[in-house]
């Protein structure tokens, strides 16, 4: 991996992490989303076909609204995974500008070699959870299951 990053000249740039996180979270998100998509009733698609909807309209106006909760949920999970990732972030960056929060926190040092600044580390850790909490608060209305309830029987 490191060799590849060097080869493409991505070392110590945000792109190194963007690519590796995208590639690593893709299998997981695809897997989660396919289960959601399989649960969409086929009759709804057929009803839309009879109503005269083209495939693009079916995806945008019928399936996307139904998939929103799933997209938000998997998106949040992928975000959390990338946000908290440590190993790649440590390996692929060297300057303060390209570093991610977990790496930066781990590099906090005290006044002497023998002192670990627990107070500052804890304060920083709490602070970095803030964006997560914020995102969940914003999307909490969307993170609900059973949005398809009522469209088909049951």
């Amino acid at each position, binding site marked *: 991996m490191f060799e590849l990053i060097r080869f493409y000249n991505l070392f110590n740039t945000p792109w190194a992490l963007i690519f590796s996180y995208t590639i690593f979270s893709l299998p997981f998100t695809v897997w989660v989303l396919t289960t959601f998509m399989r649960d969409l009733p086929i*009759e*709804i698609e057929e*009803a*839309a076909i*009879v*109503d005269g909807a083209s495939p693009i309209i079916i995806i945008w106006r019928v399936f996307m*609204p*139904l998939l929103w909760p799933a997209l938000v949920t998997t998106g949040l999970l992928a975000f959390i995974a990338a946000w908290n990732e440590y190993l790649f972030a440590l390996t692929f960056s060297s300057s303060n500008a390209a570093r991610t929060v977990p790496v930066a926190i781990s590099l906090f040092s005290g006044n002497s070699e023998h002192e670990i600044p627990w107070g500052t580390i804890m304060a920083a850790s709490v602070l970095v959870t803030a964006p997560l909490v914020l995102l969940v608060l914003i999307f909490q209305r969307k993170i609900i299951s059973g949005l398809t309830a*009522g469209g*088909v029987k049951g």
Partner: protein
Amino acid sequence: MAELQLTDIRKSFGAVEVIRGVSLTIRSGEFMVFVGPSGCGKSTLLRLVAGLEAISDGTLSFDGQIVNNLAPSKRGIAMVFQSYALYPHMTVYDNMAFGMQLAKSSKDAIKERVEKAADLLQITPYLKRLPKQLSGGQRQRVAIGRAIVRDPKVFLFDEPLSNLDAALRVATRLEIAKLHHSMNGATMIYVTHDQVEAMTLADRICVLRDGVIEQVGTPVELYEQPQSLFVAGFIGSPKMNFLTGKFAEPYGASTIGIRSEHIQIGPGEGAWTGKVIHSENLGSDSYVYADMGTGEPVIVREDGTKKHQPDEAISIRPQRGQVHRFDSEGRPLGRQ
């Protein structure tokens, strides 16, 4: 408004041929019911008409125009699904308006049509609600409303009542019948496995079995002149009693079929004797299950006031002229 002509329609899924050569004319304005046991291909046939499945062979035409390769939305059909298939995220109004919105109709025209349909089905109070806030019967009415708004030439119903409870089913059945009367001239095709629905709703019934048509006719024709043993057994509730061997021989047939209401209880000329297994009293009628030594019990309908105890001896005789005779191939030989 449209006459449908099916000519030697075939449909294969891989190597399995599900519809094996169906030819049928559905007259304009007719209420046609496809009925048959599960797996007989009736739903597939409806989906072929709708255009949701491609026809493997044969031609389908609406008013003389071949529509084999026409998209469902261009055929002038509307379909009501068994599971309603409403769009869960849209209000009832939007559900009904969706097709017209896609067709780029004007807002006023949409509003007028939706409100008219809602009025007809008495769902006007629910127009702002989401499907999940409705009961099963209301959802099914919205699904029917969505079909009406499309103003189709042909209505297709795919077992629309099978998700409803018994009382609601009877009520909705009545509404569909009323709908057919009020929409003068709309052709309707209705798929069901419930032969009571078929008998009560249909102008004509098409009985399917293993992908071929067994018989097409009015409910009364099918009831009184079944063209095969299968139709005789399928139409009518309770099932027609079939007797073979020594019971059938005097009639010159290999199998005879007698409906439960055409059997009299009491000794007399040509009476058979057996014993009562069970009797069901439904109030107005009672059904007596009699063991005649034939394996299957013979079901006899009787006045609801009579009572029979299990193991009681019983003699029964068929009414003259009401015995359906069939040869060994299951073909009819007429009544006697």
